[in-house]
C-alpha cells in the first residue's frame, strides 16, 4: 500500500458518522403552476378515489448515506480534500399481509476533490474486506464533496427505480421529489414530506388543508422545476392526506405532496395518485414509532433502518480505515 498519501483529516468531522437520508430539495422558487390540468379552477375540491385493484403491490425506494472518515492529501503544499463514504439503497414491497425488503445495495467510495484520481482500496475490516471505489471530483470544496456522496446515492436510487419500473407492475414510490435521477417516463411517484415552498395560491391551498383522510386535491402541473435538469421537465402533482393531524399540530401535518412525470400522461398520473391516496394512509407511522411520523411511512422508516444497519457499525468501520491509512 505504498504511495497512499491521504491522511485522515477532521474537516468532515461534524458530518462523520451521521447517517443522512435524502434531503428533499424542492427546486427553485420561481415555478409556473397550472392547477387546471384535471379540473377547472372553480371545481377544485377534495377527491375520494376508489379502492385500488386487489393484490396491488406498492414498492418504496429509499437510500441512506454516511461519511465514514474525512481525509486530506498533501501534494507539494496543495491540499486536496476528500472522504470515505458509504451509502445504501433499497426497496420494500408491500403486499396484503406481507412487507418485504426486496433490494439492498451498499456501496462505498473514496471521493477526492481537485481532480485527484484515488485508487480503489480494499480495507480489511474484521473478517472481510471493505471495497472503496475511487471517485474523482473536479471541485475541491468540501460541501460539494459531501454533496457528491448524495449524488451517487441518488443515481443508484434512480437506476433501481428504472429497473423496478420495468420489472414490477405495481405502484412505485420514491422518497423525495422527482429529480433527474429518475428517468423520465417511468411511472413512479415522488413522495414529498416537506412543504417548504408553496405551489398553490391561498385559495387553492385551502382545499389542500380541508383534505380528509384518504382524499387528494386535483392534479396540478409544475412546469420546468427540476433544478438539475437544464431542459426542465414538467411534473404533475397533488396533495394527499395520509394521516389525521396530530392534535394541536397544524392541519398541514399528515399531508404530503406527490409528484409524477408529466410525460407518463395525465391518465396514468391520475391513476397513480388515486392508488397512492388509498394505499398510503395504511402505511403512515404512529407518532411513537418515528420522529417524522406520521408522514414518514412504516416501510420507508424500516428500510432506512435496515440500510443504516447494513452500512456497518461506524466506529468499527472508521477504526479499520484509520488503521489502514496509518499502516500505509
Amino acid at each position: 500500500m505504498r504511495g497512499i498519501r491521504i491522511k485522515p483529516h477532521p474537516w468532515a468531522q461534524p458530518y462523520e458518522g451521521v447517517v443522512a437520508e435524502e434531503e428533499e430539495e424542492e427546486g427553485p422558487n420561481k415555478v409556473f403552476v397550472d392547477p387546471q390540468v384535471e379540473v377547472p379552477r372553480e371545481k377544485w375540491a377534495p377527491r375520494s378515489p376508489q379502492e385500488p385493484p386487489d393484490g396491488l403491490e406498492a414498492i418504496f425506494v429509499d437510500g441512506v448515506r454516511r461519511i465514514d472518515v474525512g481525509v486530506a492529501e498533501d501534494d507539494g503544499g496543495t491540499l486536496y480534500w476528500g472522504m470515505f463514504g458509504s451509502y445504501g439503497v433499497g426497496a420494500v414491497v408491500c403486499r396484503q399481509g406481507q412487507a418485504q425488503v426486496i433490494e439492498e445495495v451498499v456501496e462505498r467510495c473514496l471521493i477526492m476533490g481537485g481532480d485527484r484520481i484515488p485508487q480503489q482500496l480494499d480495507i480489511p475490516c474484521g473478517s472481510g474486506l471493505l471495497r472503496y471505489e475511487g471517485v474523482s471530483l473536479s471541485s475541491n470544496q468540501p460541501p460539494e464533496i459531501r454533496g457528491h456522496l448524495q449524488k451517487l446515492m441518488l443515481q443508484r436510487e434512480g437506476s433501481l427505480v428504472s429497473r423496478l419500473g420495468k420489472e414490477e407492475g405495481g405502484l412505485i414510490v420514491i422518497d423525495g421529489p422527482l429529480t433527474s435521477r429518475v428517468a423520465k417516463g417511468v411511472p413512479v411517484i415522488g413522495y414529498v414530506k416537506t412543504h417548504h415552498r408553496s405551489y398553490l395560491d391561498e385559495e387553492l391551498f385551502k382545499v389542500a388543508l380541508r383534505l380528509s383522510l384518504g382524499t387528494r386535491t386535483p392534479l396540478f402541473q409544475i412546469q420546468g422545476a427540476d433544478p438539475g435538469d437544464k431542459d426542465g421537465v414538467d411534473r404533475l402533482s397533488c396533495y394527499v392526506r395520509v394521516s389525521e393531524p396530530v392534535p394541536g399540530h397544524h392541519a398541514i401535518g399528515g399531508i404530503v405532496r406527490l409528484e409524477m412525470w408529466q410525460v407518463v400522461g395525465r391518465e396514468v398520473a391520475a391513476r397513480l395518485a388515486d392508488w397512492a391516496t388509498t394505499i398510503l394512509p395504511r402505511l403512515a407511522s404512529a407518532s411513537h414509532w418515528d420522529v417524522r411520523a406520521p408522514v414518514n411511512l412504516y416501510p420507508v422508516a424500516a428500510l432506512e433502518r435496515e440500510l443504516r444497519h447494513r452500512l456497518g457499525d461506524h466506529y468499527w468501520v472508521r477504526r479499520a480505515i484509520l488503521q489502514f491509512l496509518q499502516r500505509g
Partner: protein
Amino acid sequence: MQQQPVGLVLGTIDAEPLEFWVGVEKGQYLQLDDVVYVDTQIPTGETVTIYGVVDKVCSRYEGTRFDSDVFLVTEGVLPAGVVTVAHVSVTRVGVDKEVFVPPMPGQPVYRALGEKRDQALFFDAMGRRFPAGLSRDGQVVWADLDFLDGTKGAHVNIAGTSGVATKTSYACFLLYSLFHHPNTQDEMKGATAVIFNVKGEDLLFLDLRNERLTSEHSKMYERMGLPVGPFSRVKIWAPPRPGWFGILADADTRQEGVTPYCWTLREFCQERLLRFLFAEAEDESFISYAVQVAERYLQRETESQPKDQAWVKLGDKRITAFDELVEHLSQQGQMFQDARISTATREAFYRRLWASVETVGHLIRGDLHPDEVEKYRMDVWDNKVNVISITKLHDRAKRFVVGVVLKQLLEEKDRRGQRLPLLFVVLDELNKYAPRDGRSPIKEVVLDIAERGRSLGIILIGAQQTASEVERRVLANSSFRVAGRLDVVEAERSEYGFLLSVGQRRATILKPGTLFLFQPQIPLPILARFPMPAWATRPEEAQRPSAYDRVRDEAQI
C-alpha cells in the same frame, strides 16, 4: 456426504465452552432435545468437536421495535425478518482429549446422527449398555450397566405423579430390557427381581402377553432390539385371605398361578420380626425398647424349636395363632417391669400389638402343616421375577411385609457374601418406607440396601411421587435418577436439580410414557419415551381372556 448444517453459531450472544446459541438456517429446524455438534479449530491445528443438546428454542422478529409491530408486520405494512435461535447445552468437548474452548461465531452446527450422537451422549463410552427408552426422534437412549449393577454405581430412583404410567411401568420396563436385551441377557441369567405390587393389581399379569399392544408400541420394542412379550419365570405372590379357614391367595383379578405367602409363628419369634409391626416412623423410641425386650424374650423362648414347625411353645403352652401369641405376651408384665419399662409404655405397646392382630394376624400362622410351611414360604431365588402383592393389606401389614421381605433378602445376600447373582427390588411409595424424617426398622433396612446394596448385589429400583419426602441418603445413592410428570410445586424442589431449570419446567407437562433420565456419565437429563407394557396389566389385556374368566369364576364360587 457432508450433511447440511442446521445453523451457525451466533456471535451476538457469547458462545461459551459449556453453552452456546445457534442461529437456525432457513429451511432447517431444531427442536428441544435435538443433539448437535460443531467442529472448532484450535491454533495447534487440531479440531475439537463440541457436542450438545438443544434445551431452548426461540424465534422472534428482527428489525422491529415495539410489541405492537407484530400487527404492522402481518398487515404487510412493516418489513421484518424472522429469526429462530436455539440454545445448546454442551454435553461433551472432544472425544479423546478435552479442550474447553468455545465454538467460534459463524461456525456451522450439524445434527448429530449415528456415531456422532453416540459420542455426544457418551453412548460410545458405555461398555455394557442396555436400552432405557427411545428419544423423541426414535433413537435408542442407552443406559450404562456399569452404573446399575454395582460395578461403578447402583440403584434407580423414579419420581412422578401417580396415574401417569411412569413409576412402576418404567421400573418394569427397565427390568424387561435388562433381562431380554441381547447385550445384557446373558449377564442377567441368574438375576432375580422382587417387585412389590403396592397399589391396584396391575403387576399381577407380568407373565401374560398384552394382547392389546398396538403395533406402534411393538415397533418401539423392536427398535430397541427387544422381543415383544411377557416376562418369563414369574411367580406371583399374594397374602392369604383374612378370616378364611384355609390358605387362599387374596387377589381380586387373578387366582390362577397366584401363590399365597405367609410366615410362621416360629419364624416370627426366632427371627425377631416383631419390630416390623411397629414400623411407623412416628413410633416413639421408648416403645422400640419395649419391642426389643419382647423380641428377645420370644427368641430366647423358641430358640431350639424345629424348623419345620409352624407353631411355637411358650412356657408350657402350644401357641398356634397370632392372637394367642399376643395374649401370651400380654401376660408377661413382669418381663417389662424387670426391664424398667413404665406402665404407660407397656400399655402403649400392648395397644398397638392388639391392634395388629386384626390387620396382620393372618400373615403370621401357627396352623400350618410342615408341607404348607414349605409351600407358602416366600422363596424368591428360584424365580426370575417375583411379584409380591400387598395391595389388599392394611397399611400396618404392608409395612410388615415390606420390612420382613427386605430384611430376609438382605440377610440372605449377606450370608451368601457374593454380589452375583444380582437381586433387583422394585419398591414404590419409598416416601412411606424410607421417609425423610424419623426412624423406623424398615427405613433402616432400605437405607442399608441403598448404602451397601452396591457391593451386596441388591439393586433398589425405588419410586415415589415426591422425592422431597424421601430420605436423602437413599436418593444420593441412586446412580440413575428418573422423573416422569411432576407436580408443579414438587418440580421446583432441589431434589430435581438434575433436571436443570428447563427440565424442571418441562417435567410438569410430560406426557404419559415420557420421562427424563439422568445417568452419571451424561451431564444432562435425556428425554426418553418407553413403550406400553408388552405384558398385561389388566385381565382384559391378557392373552386368554376366556380361560382367565373361567378360572376367576371358579375361584369365586
